[in-house]
């Protein structure tokens, strides 16, 4: 309970309403049909993936995300019947081996701007490292870029949970389990450690929300902050599918500007002093900041 900060939650909600561009209310997620499998070797998992404001409903145009599945032995497993719809995508996965599978969607985009004919222009949406060269026109100077990494994950286990899929890449936000995500239950504390670019992601806000938002008046959001080691401990008040999300950098609006509002979002190369309440008009064209998003869906037993 010590970690819950209802007042800050209210603040954040107000800030979000005040700033339409922070329609960051759109939450990316995957929803597995099951997380616990017997391990007979011929079971099937089906997964929905979407970005929406209500969890877990389909209420927003979907994305062309490519899911990557890591099998318990560390190999990549192929998904089947992948269908990308207007509001969601679905895919199936054969659960053939015992142990824990990781289902991940990782997106890395470039944001930024450049000078052309005395004017500063934004990089088009959807620019990646691979398309940067074609996205910047000839004659452009002073190209500034930052990376936006989004990682969406969920985990399922046949038989006993294993830890082989939790290798990290050192890019963006990643979760390292202290408590295995397929071993969480109502009323029991669960601890997860987050890394930002391979280092402990300290001081970041963590949000956990149980699904079923549409038919209740209380969002039931749990708020916390990662400690110096990047760890957060959550105690689940009820059973169900929870969406757990962490963000770093870039997302903060000037309206919120508490002390150290940027946490350790640590955008390397971001020039000015942090938390600068500075001239808001200049902000959109300021140096872009790296940002990272992590979201996972965990099933809490009870």
């Amino acid at each position: 309970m010590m970690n819950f900060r209802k007042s800050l939650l209210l603040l954040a909600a107000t800030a979000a309403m005040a700033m339409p561009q922070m329609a960051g209310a759109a939450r990316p997620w995957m929803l597995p049909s099951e997380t616990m499998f017997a391990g007979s070797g011929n079971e099937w998992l089906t997964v929905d993936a979407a970005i929406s404001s209500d969890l877990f409903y389909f209420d927003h145009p979907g994305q062309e995300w490519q899911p990557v599945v890591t099998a318990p032995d560390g190999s990549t497993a192929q998904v089947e019947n992948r269908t990308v719809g207007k509001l969601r995508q679905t895919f199936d996965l054969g659960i053939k081996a015992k142990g824990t599978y990781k289902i991940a969607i990782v997106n890395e985009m470039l944001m930024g701007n450049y000078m052309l004919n005395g004017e500063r222009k934004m990089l088009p949406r959807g620019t990646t490292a691979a398309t940067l060269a074609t996205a910047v026109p000839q004659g452009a100077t002073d190209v500034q870029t930052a990376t936006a990494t989004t990682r969406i994950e969920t985990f399922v286990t046949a038989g006993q949970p294993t830890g082989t899929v939790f290798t990290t890449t050192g890019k963006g936000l990643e979760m390292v389990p202290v408590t295995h995500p397929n071993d969480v239950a109502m009323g029991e504390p669960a601890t997860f450690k987050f890394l930002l670019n391979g280092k402990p992601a300290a001081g970041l806000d963590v949000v956990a929300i149980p699904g079923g938002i549409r038919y209740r008046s209380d969002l039931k959001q749990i708020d916390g902050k990662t400690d110096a080691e990047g760890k957060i401990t959550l105690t689940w008040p009820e059973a169900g599918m929870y969406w757990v999300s962490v963000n770093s950098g870039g997302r903060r609006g000037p309206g919120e500007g508490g002390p150290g509002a940027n946490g350790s979002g640590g955008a390397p190369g971001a020039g000015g002093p942090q938390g600068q309440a500075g001239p808001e008009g200049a902000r959109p064209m300021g140096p872009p900041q790296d940002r990272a998003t992590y979201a996972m869906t965990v099933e809490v037993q009870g």
Partner: protein
Amino acid sequence: MQISHKIVLSGSAALGALATPAAAQTLDVTLTLPRMSVAEYHRPYVAIWLEKEGAPARTLTILYDVDKRNNGGAKWLRDVRMWWRASGRSLTVPADGVSGATRAPGTHKLSFTSGKGGMPTLAPGKYTLMVEAARENGGRELVRVPLNVTGAGAKGSAAGQFELGAVSAVLSR
């Protein structure tokens, strides 16, 4: 060590006349599976296990469709969800002295003897006897029976509301 030794001694002194093997404990569990007036009824899968803080859970019994071909009934064991997480997923079924057939509605007495099947010898301490019933196309319920084990044994009871009726347990030696 000294303490448990003493308890064993006093225990066998009390039961000395019966010539029981030292420290043989019996846990009698009485549980009621309610009769349901529903269109489609299947006997529930029932798991009984012991939990103690800081120790791994111990399955005493799992009642499921043991007679299905190729152990096909095991596929649904994970629907006994709390048991599956606590202990079931580390158990291979059928397990001798642990798995058994489902039971009809009514009151049943199940006895577990320490050292046989999944029943350990219980040192004094606070345990919880967990009983979970899951019914196909029906509900699922978990009943926790606190057991404060002393040298003299233990007694506890609790009751469910949906898939389980009264549950009681007596540990004796």
